[in-house]
């Protein structure tokens, strides 16, 4: 796996974490505690970092 596809994979992971947590909260399966919300924010911050670090799309 190249660096680019590693970053893509990791970006997907972070989005998956954010989405799973938020859907879980909406559906009442995950409590919206401060630490859970922080985990979502962390995932989105990491996703943003990965986007900023990646090559611009041609």
């Amino acid at each position, binding site marked *: 796996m190249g660096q680019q596809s590693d970053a893509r994979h990791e970006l997907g992971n972070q989005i*998956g974490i954010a989405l799973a947590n938020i*859907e879980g909260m909406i559906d009442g399966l995950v409590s919206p505690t401060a630490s859970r919300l922080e985990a979502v924010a962390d995932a989105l911050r990491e996703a943003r970092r990965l986007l900023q670090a990646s090559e611009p799309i041609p």
Partner: protein
Amino acid sequence: MREKKRIVVVEDEPDIAEIVREYLERDGFSVEVAGTVTGALDALQRGTPDALLLDITLPDGSGLDVLRAAALPEARVPTIMLTARADEADRIIGLELGADDYVTKPFSPREVLARVRSLLRRTGETAAATAGKPTRKTRIAELEIDHDFHELSIAGKTASLTATEFKILALLAENPGEVFTRSHLLDRLGDDGAIYERTLDRHINNLRKKIEKDPRNPEYVLTVYGTGYKMRRS
């Protein structure tokens, strides 16, 4: 009381795995989570689950190794792959290792739950049918399709189909001569087209390889050019 259906979830991201677990458990399933190939193989060793959710990229190897173990004929496990790439999923389904469906990552846990329900509806009709109903069989030339037990025999010999292949065959065979468009077929398979559209032709090709003497000149599952597919009349 009926025992809970057991599902093995193989996913290396613990947050995601746990949330998927919550969804499945709320739906009445018993769930076992594994984050590695080794853990997944252990879970399969403990007993054949009713379904397997399988991440392809795992820290200690490839989910394909798990799929090979899960696809053994004596322990055929209905499997949904979790993968970042649809083309990869298509390729794996093409390898006929027994994967029935896939969800692309990043996925929504709601979507995963919906796909699990759909898969078990397809495979679980077998169990529901054992409750003393008369057997339903369709015969077309050398094919004999047992709808209750999801079994197919060709000229008396049992053939092994995946859940999706069986469903396609059963649907066509129950309506011989009727032309099914792709979207009609997808609709009747009870799935939202987005997932299956890309793999339907692949499933048809795999089905033909199993039931046709010459898959290039099919005698049973016929292509109606520009329209779709149909089963020969008798």
